[in-house]
């Protein structure tokens, strides 16, 4: 029920007085309301739930933690002698 997925904002437009974005989710595009995340811009990733963006993904934060996690994964495989 609280399922929410990240997608990339391709386009932003006004519709019936609210901001709506065309957002791509792994090849599929859907219209997403930006009422709750008015700061979202083209190129941002937004996390979307029941047709509404609920957050703008913090790309810097995501890259930083992923780098740490990936380093951990590499180290671990080296220790185990795996590729």
């Amino acid at each position, binding site marked *: 029920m609280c399922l929410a997925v990240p997608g990339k904002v391709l386009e932003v437009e006004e519709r019936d007085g609210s901001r709506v974005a065309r957002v791509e989710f792994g090849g599929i595009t859907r219209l997403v309301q930006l009422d709750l995340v008015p700061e979202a811009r083209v190129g941002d990733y937004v996390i979307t739930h*029941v047709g509404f963006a609920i957050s703008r*993904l*913090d790309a810097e934060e995501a890259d930083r933690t992923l780098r740490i*996690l990936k380093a951990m994964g590499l180290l671990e*495989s080296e220790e185990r002698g795996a590729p």
Partner: protein
Amino acid sequence: MKYIDEYRDERIARALVADLARRVTRPWLLMEICGGQTHTLMRYGIDELIPPQITLVHGPGCPVCVTPLEAIDKAIQIASRPEVIFVSYGDMLRVPGSRSDLVQARAAGGDVRVVYSPLEALKIARAHPERQVVFFGIGFETTAPANAMAVLHAQRQGLRNFSMLVSHVLVPPAIRLLLSSPQNRVQGFIAPGHVCTVMGYREYEALSREFHVPIVVGGFEPVDLLEAISLLVAQLEEGRAETENQYARSVTREGNLQAQAIMERVFEVCDRKWRGIGLIPRSGLRLRPEFAAHDAEKVFQLEELTAEEPAECLSAQVLQGLKKPTDCPAFGRRCTPAMPLGAPMVSAEGACAAYYLYRRQAVAP
């Protein structure tokens, strides 16, 4: 998909498991609150991957599971009226009420439709000005701003034939109840990442302080959950009890202030009965009086009902992490997703349904 695939990386997951095995010295019992997280844990077999000292129990974070029987019965009453188009998220349709469910109401002639967004309900209302369109507004804090926004859109568009049957619930009062119970065994919580995306995590910091319990806001992919478990175990092993944020790519301490303001404008906090658990003070949201024209409870004269669960269903203990679904004698026998006895068997996020999908072999037929 970017920001999903990386968090399913097997190498990272293995490293996190190894790290966990090095850290853990004693048995610990952890609870993930959110049913979406329960689903990921079962689907990827994370409960079987982690060191055996760590036990995961599953929390009440499945809105479909905790929506009270009475609300389902009201929904069925409304959906059975000839002038009504009843609109709902799909999961609610097969949840048993005290006598029937919304699927049966539809079979009996009720116009019941499934949507994935509340805005589609508004569209239906615009297309059918001669009918009353009622949307079943359920969910946690994640969903409340979207449902609130739909009410605001309806008001702005002057839609007089749109109303909402609201049965929203809030997570922190339920955690407080679990922690206050003398039966509580949970030593650390994974807090729901999308609820906290909206609300931030200050309320959880207060719970950590008051009950001296570690809480980690977690995401929904396997790597997220393993990292959250790892952070919890580190705190427990070191004797710390803080709220930490694993899901920082989406969650900030303050949350989404715009979404909170919209919720606040449309809804007010009220006491709410949780299915399987009972009344929890100040744990629900209802529409503010100024939105009475869009409040299905005001628009329709509804019988007040109280209803009881089938005695056989252990959902109360399952939802509070006291029992595992496989402890229920009806599990997989008299209770299956095709013929659910209790709500946790309906939604894929319900603990019973998640076990049925991924752990059925654990019980002998």
